[in-house]
């Protein structure tokens, strides 16, 4: 199907908007050389929300997926849902970055974030391997800089460089895999890969080699074991809001391309990638959860937890069905809000208490009952307890595994979630049970933090209780990913 120019233009309005917003932010940064620069976070957040509205008005996906811009992008429900997820993630991250002078006083901080968001948005709708690769790089390069943004802080610099090195290496490996894919099929069009590979009767073994190489790149993006080594160090060293952004939006973007590429490019070897991904899921869940058990730094704990969470999402992908993809998409929506609120609390406490150790959370429930309650909600949602979003996500991905006849995978998943509940509860224990000398001092929250925390918590509850409308969208996205 082809589209007219007006449709194509309106389909990328949000992306154009991101570029404009970035220019505005950078321009204002140049103009405002005083205190007003602190408003940039608000402007970024408001701009992203405006772009969400813009997407809802102009970039609504048609009933049938549509290729636009010469087959570079695909206008479908999956790209649409992911774009909203990324924009929300960026808006919330911008709000959490308020009050951190070494971040918020630099317009380029927000500028880089917006570029990265633009990259993710393109990643999720890319319909061409070249476009896909460019979008991935457009996403990653600003993130390397953001991770090392506190250039006077050794840990932050280390995080940035580590992330860059791992990222560059896995990206090169992935590019090699993609080039093999091109070589087999003679096309860079994702939609045509399956058909062309079929026609050229490419040997399975070669296709599997390409599959493994591509999975290295995607595995890095979603921080699945064994490509996870960067995550704990980078999360610990990077500024907390950036870590939150990395662990949510960036991971979701990784999943978007993973699902797109394997469902078409490797259609011919579906049983093999289903097993490979199931394997990745099992090791990610198990290793992530077991290593999280011993952490005393909350950012590292959340890093290992996010590795395990990637494992649960992979359970949905490994089902290989449309329902599995929908479950993964729902899980990602739930996970974005949940993990952002978790990192939000970490950011707030880190700012006010000055430490990311678990011990910094002692007495939190006496000091700031509302913040403790928000922490409770985020931890329980990560643990998959109703009435929070994580519960629905877990049920959906495990259901997808059972539907696909892989009940053992679901069983491994639920056993893992028991282990995970332990360390989430330990965090709550610090906040609720342990005492501290500072517990009488209230915790001051900035207005932006309050807004962001409230939005996230509301979202976590809404996704966990009012399930149907969101599942409708996840279902459409899953369907759009599964048909080519």
């Amino acid at each position, binding site marked *: 199907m082809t589209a007219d120019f007006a449709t194509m233009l309106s389909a990328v309005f949000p992306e154009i908007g991101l570029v404009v917003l970035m220019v505005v932010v950078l321009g204002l940064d140049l103009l405002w050389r005083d205190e007003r620069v602190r408003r940039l976070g608000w402007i970024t957040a408001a701009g992203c929300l405006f772009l969400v509205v813009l997407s809802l008005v102009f970039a609504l996906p048609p009933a049938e997926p549509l290729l636009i811009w010469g087959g570079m992008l695909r206008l479908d429900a999956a790209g649409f849902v992911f774009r909203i997820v990324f924009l929300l993630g960026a808006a919330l991250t911008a709000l959490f970055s308020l009050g951190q002078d070494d971040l918020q006083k630099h317009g380029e901080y927000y500028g880089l974030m917006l570029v990265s968001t633009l990259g993710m948005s393109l990643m999720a709708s890319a319909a061409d391997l070249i476009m896909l690769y460019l979008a991935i790089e457009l996403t990653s390069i600003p993130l390397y800089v953001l991770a090392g943004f506190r250039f006077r802080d050794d840990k932050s610099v280390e995080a940035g460089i580590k992330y860059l090195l791992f990222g560059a290496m896995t990206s090169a490996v992935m590019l090699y895999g993609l080039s093999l894919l091109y070589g087999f099929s003679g096309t860079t069009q994702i939609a045509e890969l399956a058909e062309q590979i079929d026609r050229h009767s490419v040997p399975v073994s070669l296709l599997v080699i390409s599959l493994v190489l591509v999975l290295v790149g995607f595995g890095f993006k979603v921080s699945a074991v064994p490509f996870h080594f960067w995550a704990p160090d980078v999360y610990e060293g990077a500024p907390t809001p950036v870590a939150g952004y990395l662990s949510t939006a960036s991971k979701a973007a990784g999943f978007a391309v993973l699902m797109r590429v394997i469902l078409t490019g490797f259609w011919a070897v579906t049983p093999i990638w289903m097993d490979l991904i199931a394997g990745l899921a099992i090791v990610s869940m198990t290793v992530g959860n077991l290593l999280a058990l011993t952490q005393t730094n909350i950012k590292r704990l959340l890093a290992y937890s996010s590795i395990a969470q990637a494992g649960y999402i992979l359970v949905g992908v490994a089902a290989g069905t449309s329902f599995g993809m929908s479950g993964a998409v729902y899980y990602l929506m739930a996970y974005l809000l949940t993990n952002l609120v978790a990192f939000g609390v970490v950011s707030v406490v880190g700012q006010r208490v000055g430490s990311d150790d678990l011990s910094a959370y002692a007495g939190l429930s006496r000091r700031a009952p509302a913040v403790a309650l928000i922490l409770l909600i985020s931890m329980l949602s990560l643990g998959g307890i109703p009435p929070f979003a994580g519960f629905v996500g877990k*049920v959906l991905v495990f259901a997808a595994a059972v539907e696909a006849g892989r*009940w053992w995978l679901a069983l491994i998943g639920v056993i893992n979630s028991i282990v995970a509940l332990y360390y989430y509860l330990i965090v709550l224990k610090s906040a609720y*049970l342990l005492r501290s000398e500072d517990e009488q001092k209230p915790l001051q929250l900035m207005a932006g933090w309050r807004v962001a925390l409230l939005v996230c918590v509301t979202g976590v509850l809404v996704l966990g209780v009012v399930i149907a409308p969101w599942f*409708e969208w996840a279902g459409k996205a899953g369907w759009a990913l599964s048909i080519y």
Partner: protein
Amino acid sequence: MQFPWLSLLIFTPLIAGLVILALPAGRRDWIRGVAVIAASLDLLMSLLVYFRYDATVGDYQFIERVPWVPQLGISYYVGVDGFSLPLVLLGSVVVFCGVLISWRIEDRPREFFAFLMFLGTSVLGVFCSLDLFQLFFFFELAVFPKYLMIILWGYPKTREYGGMKLTLYLFAGSVIALVGALAIYFGSGLRTFDMLALEKAGFPLWFQQFWFPFVFLGFAVLGGIFPFYSWAPDGHVAAPTAVSMLLAGVEMKVGAFSALRAGIMLLPEGARYWAVWILVLATVNVVYGAFLAMTQTDFKYVIGFSSVSHMGLVLIGFATLSSQGLLGAGMQMFSHGIMTAMFFAVVGMVYDRTHIREISRLGGLFNKMPWAGIGFVIAGLVSMGMPGFSGFVAEFPVFMGAWRALPLVAVIAVIGILVTAGYILLVLRRVFFGKLPDFGEHVPDVSMLDKIAIGLLGFLMVVLGWFPSLLSTVVQSGVDRILVLLGGG
């Protein structure tokens, strides 16, 4: 559409909990006021529902159904039958008494009462659920209130261990049951979580035999089935009084009820296949639990193990798959819930006033706190299965059913009852009679609110002993429905 009594019943505590969380932390009177009003409303509503339920018609009544996630066949679907109705009443009674008993809580009362209310919503929600997804939803809703209440307000020495152990055991059981439930969902080919529809799905025999242990055992962990019972004494003992009452009194019934509802009723052939093994495990529960209770030196542990022992009788009743056994199990769930709530309430009162739980250091307390003493005597008589009390009318049918199913089970289980009589009398004599220790002179009597709670619980146990038909006709109508699923019994 009729008046949504059940929804009101389920969500009143939830709303009260949210209101309490929004109150300023310092207003203890408001907080307690909201809690007691919500609990009383729930008690009144559940009494109303209980007496308006038409046992001659049977089946599910007070049904409400609203689509929830239509794409997946999930709906908000509530209704009560003769089996779940008494449990709804039980839940309301125990929550009400729990609020009264916890009146003087000092540390963070706002969080305490809010979490207690959430726990109430969770248990009532499970009992009323006719949708499998919704059942899980309410079931796991209890995870965090349980954990936090135990570690925050529990017994300082063991609360962290007991709370974590209990939470992880129960979560483990429920998620393993979840895998089974998902298999049922997909295996039925109906794409619905509606349990009334799933009952008629006609699963193949191998399917039922394979998945039954997942669902039944997963839930029965919360019912305290051997060998997964050890969370119960540790958890009950570590918990604050009101939570012990709710855990042993109601939560264990939530487990047993869910095992029946999602296990036996959805996979009846699986139940038939595994029934002998459940009988064996449950008999171990009864006897082993009783012996363990006998050997305890800690007052609260005695009661903790006694509930493991008594829940064994419920599970025996289930596993007989017969009319008498199921009737007895249904009655025993109610009777034991009230009885063990009374036990834990009395233990809590004694501990609050003496700060001692070692049986050997207590004594002669009957004169100091006669209400607590009388409450313990009544609960003790119920526990022993003495005629004239609710325990007799509940245990007798269980033994009848067991005798028919497997006489050896009945014979062995009777040993458990004898041992029960032994440890109850022993504790009664040591704690409430005999010589008052030195500190005993200054032990104050129980408060007015405590007396109301003891009075209510005691009243129920005696009334059911004399008028068992108040309960048995209702339960029998529920049992008849289960027997139809089991193919005429």
